[in-house]
């Protein structure tokens, strides 16, 4: 099933990683303090666009993630705005301590790109997949954590991250995502979730590729007479407490959906806020304590239960639990 089709979303020809590359080139063009550090994956993360246009501000540090982060931190201390880039899995898992000390604890103005987040990088398999990146970043108190959901929000997120003064993590994906927002008209404020569909019966809170899947699920639920609100939780930290409290109060049931382990990801953070603000029945869509495998992205999403079908099923459960109360 094509992502976003049921919701009537328009497919976008470019994979999200290419959109990231273009967005990064834009901020590099606008801000001469932007420098880009690559862990020898610029042709995959698409930081190569900056390399081609601004070679003096691009540094391939090689396959050495610890050093990549350390050098980026040094450049930040010199007043530059470094984008430290690699696959989410390699960068965070190899250089977590460097990100912790040199970026998070030092509270410097550096941006970390975790590309190829989630399982939709597909055939390269679980060694390359970043399914724990949001949990790891959650362990670093000073970081803003962003997970854009479509081409327009990727552009907006890269600009917002660059303009923000302080550590930011941004997750990108290898796959193409349909258009949720008009290209040059995406509301994007760090820490403020976007309501992308109104509804009163329950709320689906999603990030990244799961926002389009949530909109598909909402379309299915609408045919059954269930009006689902959909929140694009593009900022995992700081989390939009007001939007979640309103969702819980006004719709009475919440489903979360993320391309990440359930443990420590967006959903568990949403649950903490909901439990404090206004407890309501909740269900969680995500990876349940498992590594995945190589495969076509669509096959993987189906096998590991990260589709609109799975979100709709969880929504029916949450809605039933609410109406039983």
């Amino acid at each position, binding site marked *: 099933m094509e992502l976003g089709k049921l919701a009537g979303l328009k497919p976008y020809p470019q994979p999200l990683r290419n959109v990231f590359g273009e967005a990064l080139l834009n901020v590099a063009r606008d801000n001469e303090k932007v420098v880009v550090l690559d862990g020898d994956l610029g042709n995959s993360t698409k930081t190569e666009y900056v390399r081609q246009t601004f070679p003096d501000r691009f540094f391939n540090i090689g396959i050495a993630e610890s*050093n990549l982060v350390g050098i980026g931190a040094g450049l930040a201390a*010199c007043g530059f705005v470094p984008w430290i880039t690699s696959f989410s899995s390699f960068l965070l898992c190899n250089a977590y301590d460097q990100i912790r000390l040199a970026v998070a604890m030092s509270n410097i103005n550096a941006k970390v790109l975790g590309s190829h987040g989630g399982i939709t990088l597909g055939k390269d398999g679980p060694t390359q997949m970043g399914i724990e990146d949001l949990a790891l970043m959650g362990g670093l108190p000073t970081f803003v954590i962003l997970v854009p959901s479509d081409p327009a929000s990727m552009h907006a997120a890269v600009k917002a991250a660059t303009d923000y003064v302080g550590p930011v993590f941004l997750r990108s994906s290898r796959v193409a995502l349909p258009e949720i927002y008009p290209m040059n008209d995406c509301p994007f404020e760090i820490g403020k979730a976007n309501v992308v569909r109104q509804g009163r019966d329950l709320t689906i809170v999603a990030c990244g590729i799961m926002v389009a899947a949530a909109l598909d699920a909402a379309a299915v639920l609408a045919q059954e007479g269930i009006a689902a609100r959909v929140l694009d939780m593009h900022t995992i930290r700081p989390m939009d407490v007001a939007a979640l409290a309103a969702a819980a109060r006004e719709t009475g049931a919440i489903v979360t959906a993320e391309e990440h382990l359930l443990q420590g990801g967006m959903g568990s953070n949403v649950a903490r806020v909901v439990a404090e603000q206004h407890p309501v029945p909740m269900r969680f869509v995500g990876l349940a304590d498992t590594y995945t495998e190589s495969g076509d992205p669509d096959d993987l999403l189906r096998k590991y239960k990260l589709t609109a079908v799975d979100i709709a099923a969880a929504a029916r459960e949450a809605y039933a639990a609410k109406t039983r109360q």
Partner: protein
Amino acid sequence: MDAIPTTAVGELNEIARQMRLDILEMTTKAGSGHPSSSFSATEIVTALYFGGVLRYRPDEPLWPERDRFIMSKGHAAPLLYAALARAGYIERNLIWTLREVDSPVQGHPIQNVLPGVEATTGSLGQGLSAGVGHVLGGRLNRFDYRVYVLLGDGECEAGQVWEAAMSAAHFKADNLVAILDYNKYQETGPISREMALEPLAQKWQSFGWHVEEADGHDMADLLAKFDAVRMVKGQPSIIIAHTIKGKGVSFVEADFTFHGRALTPQQAELAREELHGTR
């Protein structure tokens, strides 16, 4: 402090003696810390800050054109703090709050918390990478500052040090100078027993570095080597400084288990007498 002051070697040795006394008082008052790791590098840091090697402005800690000093062996924080207080970056009274709650004088140095701390260190292996970043930043900004990074010897067991070493040579970072405090001991024992580092000079040479060796407690030798590496072009330099862990206090020199502990008040009394030359 633009002009490089010239201070006689004798005066520098006297400063080093006073720095050791400061380190002793700080760590004994705190009841913890790493005095012996600080003592081994005291002449090195004294030469850098007070021997005219570093160019800096204590009243403008983030002066963009300053020379950088990065204490990569972050457990020698008391030595860094003693130097920052003496140089005028921080109030001298502050250093007596080492390791106390609400003090910016943390157990290991934290960047952006205390003026003059260029990088957060304490998890070993990270400082040289930051140094390379400062080199690249200086190049983009067209500044001619130099970057000095103090490494521990045990620290050179960490892979990141060699990642950074490789990249510094790749980027022809000839304004980068590493100083290796080669005191021959790591936390649990002699380096040669725990994880052999030798041949160390050849390792650095093979990574593309210019290598000098120095007596790390001989001020004139250190100053000469700092001068010599200024002439090196097209590659980074390292000064392997042979040192004695706990230098200056006989019973600390003789016992490597002082690595991670302070002297008791009684031991400090004896150490004080030695450092004052009254014992």
